[in-house]
């Protein structure tokens, strides 16, 4: 049974004004096949957690641990973590001019599985995955994310999730900017990946609407750099109705610059 554990994680970010503390003792454990939703106001550190798990060099782990099946990943480089089975679907996927999606996917697949995929099955896998995500075949020949709409970028992230088959995926606001149809398509993609590989998922979102399609086993309320409360999916409903006010300390004591982040009611 695979497990991703985050223990008392403290993380600083390097800013122009110097180091700033963002994560202040995060504890989480995600087992294979589980879905954990993280909800929290803007600026509470959700993306920081996601990036730190992936190993982004801008974030410094001051103390605490990230363990994959009991082994620390902190000393591992970004690519080593990905090869160990971690995946981050980014909130803002970057454009890479001159590198086609096809070339990228093949290179990534080869890196992850340690050998080049067999040409015939690979092309078929890519084509089928794209079709299921309702991505036009022409996307394969386009440069990564270049000129993609917000929704197309998110589908492209899920395409990679499906094809690379990680053990744990962090989905950072994959639902933001998606219309209802796209939301369903993307959610189906995530559920497929889970059903096929027993993927464990950390799903960061502001809205409960994605939770109608991707059913969380646990919901964590993230405030000012740590988990303020956890519960089952009923917690998400309450957050949607009540917002985060009850978790917010008095204004003066908020160091992390928490802005009004009550999720917009879904329709």
């Amino acid at each position, binding site marked *: 049974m695979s497990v991703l554990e985050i223990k008392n994680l403290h993380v600083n970010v390097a800013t122009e004004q110097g180091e700033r503390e963002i994560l202040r003792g995060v504890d989480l454990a995600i087992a294979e096949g589980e879905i954990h939703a993280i909800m929290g106001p803007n600026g509470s550190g959700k993306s920081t957690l996601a990036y730190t798990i992936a*190993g982004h060099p801008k974030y410094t782990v001051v103390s605490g641990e990230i363990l994959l099946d009991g082994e620390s990943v902190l000393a591992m480089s*970004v*690519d080593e973590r*990905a090869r160990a089975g971690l995946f981050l679907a980014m909130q803002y996927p*970057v*454009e890479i001019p001159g*590198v086609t999606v096809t070339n990228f996917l093949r290179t990534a697949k080869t890196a992850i599985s340690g050998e080049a995929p067999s040409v015939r099955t690979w092309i078929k896998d890519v084509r089928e995955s794209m079709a299921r995500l309702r991505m036009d075949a022409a996307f394969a020949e386009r440069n990564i994310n270049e000129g993609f709409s917000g929704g197309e970028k998110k589908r492209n992230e899920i395409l990679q999730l499906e094809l690379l088959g990680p053990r744990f995926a962090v989905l950072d606001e994959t639902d933001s900017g998606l219309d209802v149809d796209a939301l369903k398509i993307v959610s189906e993609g995530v559920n497929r990946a889970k059903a096929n590989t027993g993927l464990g998922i950390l799903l960061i979102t502001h809205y409960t609407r994605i939770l109608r399609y991707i059913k969380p086993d646990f919901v964590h309320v993230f405030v000012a750099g740590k988990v303020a409360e956890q519960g089952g999916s009923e917690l998400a409903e309450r957050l949607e109705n009540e917002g985060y006010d009850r978790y917010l300390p008095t204004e003066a004591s908020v160091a992390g610059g928490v802005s009004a982040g009550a999720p917009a009611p879904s329709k």
Partner: protein
Amino acid sequence: MTAATHAAPAAVAVSGAVPTTAQHGMTAHSDGARARPAIPVQTRSERFRSVHAADFPPVTGREVAWKFSPTARFTDLTDGDLDGSRLPFTATDAAGVTLSWIPRTDPRIGTAGTPEDRAAANAWTAVTEALCVHVGGENEKTVTITRSELGTAPRAAHTVIEAAPHSRGLIVLAGQGDARLSENVEILVGAGASLTVVSLQEWAPEAVHLASHFARLGRDARLKHIVVSLGGQIVRVNPTGHLAEPGADIEALGLYFADAGQHLEQQVFVHHDAPHTKSRVTYKGALQGEGARSVWIGDVLIGNTATGTDSYEQNRNLVLSDGTRADSIPNLEIETGDIAGAGHASATGRFDDEQLFYLMARGITEEEARRLVVRGFLTEIVQKIGSPGLEQRLTAALDMELRRS
């Protein structure tokens, strides 16, 4: 002496350059590199020209043509005696392309242009014969001329590439191994001809290569001119395209990869001298390592007869490490009010770490990720070459460059 001032002073001169920020997420300015605006002291058309070395005073390095170049390191080529005898080369064969040595008195010599600096004039004076590459026939064909045994003694060369009216062809002029070479290449593109010329510099690390290319394009002629500079200590290839007759069209492409201590320079000049002429200039370069240096100057002159002209030039540099310097100076002079379009762009940007992170987060190693990004940046040029064989060869050569870091 042939001092040429063949264009009247600008009536409507829009001169000077403002490097613009790029559309591709790069900035016009960044650490370790700079792109700076330049107001020319004189317009490019008024620059002194002569085929006689003696007409140029000894090079000081302060001349407008030399001020970015490490001139002290090649005084042998600018001011010394050059070996102007036939130089050794190998060439591939193709029906429709003939190679021959022609005497320097041949009437074709000097019809495409006149040297603008002392190195070019010195070479012009020194050669006894020119290598003539004649391209005829409407079928597509490729001939590669490789100079790989030039040695370390300073030498001169003169090449005339002549595309007969309505002919088509791709000529690659490749350089490998040692060289201290100053050369002139004249490119005569006949009416309706479609010619591609690739100057491929893969010299040994100590080589010095100074080249002036002069192209004259006839009516409805098309020239794709590509400068690829990868190897050599100092490589300076300055192409001039003279769009002399209506409908002439030049696509000037450049690709360079400057490593530590390498100086790669290109001064491009496009002269729109007839109505309805078109030019596209696109140069892209990567710089990596202490002292890696690139210079790109792009002068476009739209003469007063060049109505309906369509012109665009751009240079983009990708900076991969500290300690590099990229000078990038686009410069547009317009002497007619009636043009279809003219523009320029210049940008020098640092390698984007977020791109690196994205690729590495998918399991791709840092080395491979850098290679993908740089190759992606430069590939726009490679893909425009239009020769799959050459594209493959260049991609492999670029990968070698990246691996060397």
